[in-house]
């Protein structure tokens, strides 16, 4: 493995970890602060000022920015499946932090997701597209 490949690989996995963690905790805090219903269009705005929702939104902004950064060098069709690990961790957050009921079927789905992520990650390099370094277009 060349040093450039090693640099790219570690940068990709580090950035993917930030993407996944921001997604999981962003969604968790969003759900924690969400009321049972949003009766009017205005309530979609006012709900953003609830502390837990605001924290969730902040983390989802981190998720968006870190994901955009990752997409600046990695393929969309690579980024999508790898960051899907977040779905598994969200299910754990729902079960353990929000006391949601998770059926055997749902846990089976979680195992399938892990298998799919492993399949995508095995033997593939992070980048299939090579472009210029960052700068104005």
């Amino acid at each position, binding site marked *: 493995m060349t040093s450039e490949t090693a640099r790219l690989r570690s940068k990709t996995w580090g950035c993917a970890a930030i993407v996944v963690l921001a997604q999981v905790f962003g*969604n*968790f805090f*969003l*759900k924690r602060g*969400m*009321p*049972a*219903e*949003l009766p009017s269009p205005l309530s*979609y705005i006012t*709900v953003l000022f609830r502390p837990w929702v605001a924290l969730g939104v902040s983390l*989802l902004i981190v998720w*968006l920015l870190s994901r*955009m*950064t990752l*997409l*600046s*060098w990695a*393929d*969309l*069709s*690579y980024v*999508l*499946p790898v960051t*899907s690990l*977040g*779905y598994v961790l*969200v*299910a754990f*957050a*729902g*079960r353990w932090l929000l006391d*949601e009921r*998770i*059926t055997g*079927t*749902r846990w089976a*789905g*979680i*195992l*399938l*997701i*892990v*298998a*799919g*992520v492993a*399949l*995508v*990650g*095995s*033997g*593939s390099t992070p980048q*299939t*597209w090579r*472009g*210029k*370094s*960052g*700068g104005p*277009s």
Partner: protein
Amino acid sequence: MKWLLIATIVASTSVGEVLQAIGMRRYGEIRDFRPSALGCAAGTLARNSAVIGSVVAMAVSFFAYLGLLSLTDLSFAVPVTAATYVVETVLAKYVLKERVNWLRWAGAAVVLSGVALVSL
């Protein structure tokens, strides 16, 4: 109402993701992570039409997601939105012209099957 919100999320997210990828490729790889350089990158990206379109589509998706989250469990709302996988992988292949090999197709299909089970 629940399924209308899901359809809105899937459509707007798919469009937003592809526009985001187009915009970031137009910009190029980010190598400098110093705050000043990232601020400069953000300023440039804020004038990128594809990135602007992506943000609008993501905003639509976000408010639809808020509505869905108020109606359903977190462990349902998040996985069900992964219905975007099929649309996005096809768009990656045919719009972004990415090389999507069989391992990635198979991986995405297995992930999608898992996500479908999770959301049952």
